[in-house]
């Protein structure tokens, strides 16, 4: 399957230190395992690469001969997602693997022995969870930065 990354997205993922090969790996695994969130043709998939959880937000264009993925965005975090704490309201996303509606909820997340809760999209059936882009690039990045900053 072809993967298309528009120039403006390339710039963003470059700044975030994500390799194009990682994006390809995330999309390929999600498309073969069907473990991903879907919403009106949009897909959100994740894969652990090294110490980092890489997320790719992409659309699938189904052509006559082949289908290809158009990447909307990608982001990462190193905080480890643990168990679901609660599931509140509908998120609009569907867990493709379970074919169940995924909810907005909270997940316990751990980083460097510290455990705190954070908002996430959760599938109560399979127990999987996904951090959204705003959380990963703001709050979680700030936490990781706090630990990192103190090294220098």
């Amino acid at each position, binding site marked *: 399957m072809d993967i298309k990354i528009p120039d403006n997205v390339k710039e963003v993922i470059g700044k975030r230190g994500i390799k194009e090969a990682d994006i390809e790996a995330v999309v390929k695994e999600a498309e073969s395992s069907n473990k991903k969130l879907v919403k009106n043709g949009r897909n959100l998939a994740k894969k652990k690469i090294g110490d980092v959880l890489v997320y790719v937000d992409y659309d699938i264009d189904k052509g006559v001969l082949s289908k290809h993925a158009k990447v909307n965005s990608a982001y990462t975090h190193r905080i480890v997602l643990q168990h679901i704490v609660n599931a509140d309201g509908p998120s609009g996303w569907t867990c493709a693997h379970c074919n169940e509606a995924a909810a907005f909820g909270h997940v316990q997340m751990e980083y460097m*022995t510290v455990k*705190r*809760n954070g908002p996430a999209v959760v599938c109560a059936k399979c127990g999987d969870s996904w951090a959204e882009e705003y959380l990963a690039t703001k709050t979680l990045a700030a936490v990781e930065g706090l630990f990192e900053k*103190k090294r220098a």
Partner: protein
Amino acid sequence: MSEKIGETQSLCPHCLRTIPADKIAENDNVYLVKTCPEHGTFKVLIWRGVEDYRDLQRYACVFSPPEKIAVQTKGTCPEVCGLCPDHKQHTCLVVLEVTNRCNLKCPVCFASANERYKFHPTIDEIRKMYQTILDYVQHPIVVQISGGEPTIRDDLPEIVKLGKSMGIDYIEVNTNGIRLGEDLDYLRRIKDAGVSSLYFSFDGVTGDVYTKTCGKDLLEPKLRALENCRKVEMGVTLVCVVAPGINLHQVGDVIQFAKKWIPTVKGIHFQPLSYFGRYPKVPEDEDRVVLPDLLREIEKQTNGEIRFDSFIPTSCANVHCDAKSMSVLLEDGSLLPLTTRALGPPRDTKNVATKTRKEICDLWRYIEESVSTSSEEELDGTWLGFIERAKTRYLTISAMPFQDVWTVEAERLQGCCIHTVTPDGKLIPFCLFNINSLDGKTLYRHKVF
């Protein structure tokens, strides 16, 4: 087993002449062994733990030398200092002494305050010293106003205002706090003038410690000063001179005490007693608290809450000059160290001095608690709450044993980033400025002031 692991230059404790010195590893200790042709051989303990001593080398920074210097001749370190072309690291903190008078006369005093000489510069002389700093140091410029006791000067607010108006970015005041506990209005005025934090001498949590270090029980006056700082929201670093037999057994208590005073107290700075200025006796090895000794005591006395490996060199000064840790105070009252040796040295060891100066500016300032509009309840137990806590409920624990005439090494002097400014337009590494011989002769302090 005795092995030579390095060589350097040091000073003769009697005549202060520059003499070669070997670093010798023996019985898991590191010694400086040096011989003066006139006064004989000296063997001084400088580190306990040979592997640790060597391992710290990986934290060594890429030096960024000062862009401008006052002395142009090479090869005369440390006799002609100012800084000179042999100096490797630029300035991250300038010590500006505004008097040598003091309202105490402590048995321990690096500045030998109240004796030998009088130094009490006029506003014009202080203006010249600020100008020297502005001429040689890059922004952001961090100045510590010191002494003697700076708060005996009624014109301290004017001195601070002058520095800020001339372009000094950050000013802290080194104080015993006695006047600040008695005179809330004076404290308010130095804060309003632009003092960002206090470097506040605090040697222990019981009165007998002060009887030994300061000649009288000063615990109550110290607590009054802290209470006033809390009232005016002045950030404080507790500075604890550590000596065996006096207060080494209280380092854990000082940490527990500091936790109760967060966020007024931002940090603790432990200074193992150095043998310069006024001190009780000529040191033996057992009188020496070397950096690893202090860190082991902290681990022991905090029951592992802060560990030996929670401390890393700042990588700004020489790796054997200092250690620091940074912790967040968690909801349950325990400290979570964010620093650890396990993370390894910083990836970017360039421009560390610049980063250090920025960090001092960011972290030692009193941060308003009400940064967030969310209620405490919403933040409790969340990552956002953790960030909010980290902004205000943190404690920096650092340590720097100053070099004295016994332990001094040329490469540590040349990598030094803490400099005293002098009225004759020079910047001199703080330790070198204060070092004195056995009979009290100094290379710089008594010649300059």
